[in-house]
């Protein structure tokens, strides 16, 4: 299987490389270049998924590595000019990922665990943010540009960096749960926590960024609090409209639901960009509405969307990998690895504390922690805002933050998938049977 996958990758690489020689190096052809990159990444990502299956690694890691390897920083089969055109898929992917997450979250079923979920989400984020704040505050004395800042300015720099790194990744968690078809308390708890935490992060980043614009008045022009309310509530309203349209479609027509979901989320993502709405919130609200407030149920729609979910995930994570700035990462690797370790320690400490407060099993708490380590879409989007909004120091601090995200991006999915398999919740993994023959854990929260 691995040999076949490698041969397929070699053939597709050769074809794409030959085609790229039609125009001079550095040039591309709008439209065709993006279609070529899309096809190339999708085929190679699916082959990489086969290799990852054999190596018992998460497919998501394979997708990310494909993007990194063939992206603009290494082999350059996918050039930097092709990537912006693929953003069309990225926005839709974020909305689809959030939609699938919303479809999985049945609030009635989660009610007995809501206290544990809320406590764990808040304490893990808070503990990680505090430790990261301390680390970055210390770093502001070392980084030349921030060393001249006032105390308040240093506090704001550390606050913004800590805020971004406190974000989790619903995309990775949904991706891992989707590829392993995992079901059970660990899956549901991890998913609920990352979704809840991302909502909090969107709000707290707007607050810390507003503070940043007050302390650094000359730099950029961020959104601030005035934009926050329409941004959040507008997204929720748009999500409710999208959910209602989907419910109506399934109720009255039903045929080609998967394509319709994709088309609707594509429009939501495109219109959302123009209207400054958040595709994540739109998708999540639509999914939650369908699962909790309509008789249709999110599960049916999530199943219908499975066909389009695989290519969307593969492209989304491959593009995320291709966007990684490896050169910058290598320069800041020790700092980034240190920050990733500090973040993991904070999350673990927060989870243990939450476990003690709400009475969670220790092993379960550890496994939940592993689901909170990955970072991807939201964190990267926030880094992009940091780079754009705070030009003199933003790119320098942003590079360290991005390096930390890369570490979490590569290690997080592997650890979480392993935790899912160990917990016996993975349904489609060949190696899901535990090595010591144990059966799946019982619900420690019930």
């Amino acid at each position, binding site marked *: 299987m691995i040999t076949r996958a490698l041969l*397929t990758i070699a*053939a*597709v690489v050769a*074809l*794409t490389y030959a*085609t*790229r*020689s*039609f*125009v*001079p190096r550095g*040039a591309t*052809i*709008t*439209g*065709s*270049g*993006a*279609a*070529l*990159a*899309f*096809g*190339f990444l*999708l*085929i190679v990502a*699916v082959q990489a998924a086969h290799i990852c299956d054999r190596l018992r690694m998460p497919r998501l890691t394979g997708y990310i590595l494909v993007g990194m390897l063939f992206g603009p920083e290494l082999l350059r089969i996918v050039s930097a000019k092709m990537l912006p*055109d*693929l953003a*069309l898929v990225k926005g839709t992917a974020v909305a689809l990922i959030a939609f699938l997450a919303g479809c999985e979250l049945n609030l009635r079923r989660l009610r007995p665990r809501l206290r544990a979920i809320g406590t764990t989400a808040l304490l893990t984020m808070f503990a990680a943010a505090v430790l990261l704040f301390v680390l970055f505050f210390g770093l502001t004395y070392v980084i030349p540009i921030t060393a001249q800042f006032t105390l308040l300015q240093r506090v704001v720099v550390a606050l913004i960096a800590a805020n971004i790194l406190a974000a989790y990744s619903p995309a990775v968690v949904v991706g891992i749960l989707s590829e392993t078809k995992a079901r059970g308390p660990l899956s549901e708890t991890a998913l609920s926590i990352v979704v809840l935490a991302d909502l909090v992060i969107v709000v707290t980043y707007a607050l810390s960024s507003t503070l940043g614009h007050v302390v650094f008045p000359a730099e950029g022009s961020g959104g601030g609090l005035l934009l926050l309310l329409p941004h959040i509530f507008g997204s929720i309203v748009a999500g409710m409209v999208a959910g209602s*349209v989907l419910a*109506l*479609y399934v109720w*009255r*027509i039903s*045929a*080609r639901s998967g*394509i*319709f979901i994709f*088309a*609707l989320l594509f*429009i939501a993502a*495109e*219109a959302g960009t*123009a*209207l400054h709405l958040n595709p994540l919130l739109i998708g999540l609200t639509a999914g939650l509405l369908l699962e909790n407030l309509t008789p249709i149920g999110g599960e049916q729609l999530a199943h219908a969307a*499975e*066909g*389009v*979910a*695989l*290519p969307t995930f*593969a492209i989304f994570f491959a593009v995320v990998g291709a966007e990684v700035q490896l050169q910058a990462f290598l320069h800041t690797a020790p700092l980034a690895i240190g920050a990733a370790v500090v973040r993991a320690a904070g999350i673990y400490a927060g989870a243990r504390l939450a476990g003690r407060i709400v009475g969670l099993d220790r092993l379960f708490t550890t496994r939940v922690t592993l689901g909170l380590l990955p970072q991807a879409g939201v964190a990267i989007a926030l880094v992009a805002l940091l780079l754009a909004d705070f030009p003199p120091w933003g790119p320098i601090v942003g590079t360290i933050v991005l390096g930390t995200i890369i570490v979490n991006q590569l290690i997080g999915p592997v650890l979480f998938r392993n935790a899912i398999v160990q917990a016996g919740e993975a349904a489609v993994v060949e190696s899901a049977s535990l090595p010591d023959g144990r059966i799946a854990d019982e619900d420690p929260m019930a």
Partner: protein
Amino acid sequence: MTAPDVARLVVALAVAVALAVLGAHPRVLRWERRFGLTVLATSGFPFLILGLLFRELGVLTPGVLADLRPLFEFGLGWVGLTIGTNLDLRRFDRLPPALGPVIALASLLPILFAAVACGLTLAWVGVLPGKGLIRDALILMACAAVSAPANLELLLRRWKSSTRLVLEVTRIDQLAALAILGFVAIMFRPDRTVTLWHLPRSGWFLMTLGLGALLGIVIYFLVRNVRDPKEELALLMGGVALASGMAGYLALAVAVVCALAGAVLINFPMRGRERIVGTLREFERPLYFLFLFVVGAAWRPDEWQGWLLGAVFAVSRAYGKIVAARLSTWMEPALPEWKPFAVALLPESTIAIVVLFSATALDGAGGSAQVRWAINAVIVGSVLTEIAVQAFQRRERRLAGEETAA
């Protein structure tokens, strides 16, 4: 973006979704089948109008169309691959050899008639050789070739054995249209100074054939042993995107290269061939809506040249189909009478939209005046043809009622 812009965008997108919902409604599909209507005449026309409206409202700007270009290329590739899968040689081998000339006549005569009539009209309105006459005449020829079968159950009720023949004719003329499209892409190459490959036109012809065949083999190897339908869809999408991206990158006709790939794919021995064709067809209809939407944005109904060209196109194309039907029935007595046979072949196929869309893409977002006239010609031609076909079918329905009563 200003508040009115935002309001326009939201209303426009809401209308697009609503129309997509209506277009996919089973009742609309039932109407199409029952009355022998084409997609163009039912759910397609609203999309065309919508594209026109969106341009007027400033929603479908050249910037938006440029952003969506990867999606269009992918769509062309998908439709091309689907058309290519019609070229199953095993099916053609089973056709009686005497029907070969009939199929050739039915496909080629309308092309010839439309070429002469539309070429003269274009020259009369000032499109001379060297100023796009040949290219525009070729585009209209490709549009003239393709037909969608009318209500065959009604029209051929006394010649049921001919139904298959009519269906085969409509499949073959799709390939004739794509061949013309491929020829246009080979003859009218982009500026040689910006590319690194400098081949003669015969080289590009071989390149088109070779690339299509090679990509067919690649897609075959990708999907042949896949058991998971989700992975099959992902690989099919990847294969189509790769094929359309490569063809578009090399400035070849995307739909043609992908049709060749589809033809190669379908003729290989493969498990689950029907499932793959089914998947391709499932996504085909929404893609036509998308194309109609974009073609609508380039449509200018206020240009009289387009209306004139439309009338000439409809009449010459219909005349070509009628002459082909008369000659065919004279050559092959087993065929139905020429009138129902000609009417069965008359409706305009959605492939014309692919041809027009490719021409619009070749010309950029706005499209040249001639391409806009060609769009008008095909739209007007389709509507006129549809009216004639429906009138004939109404008469046939009445006759069928009398036959049943007797």
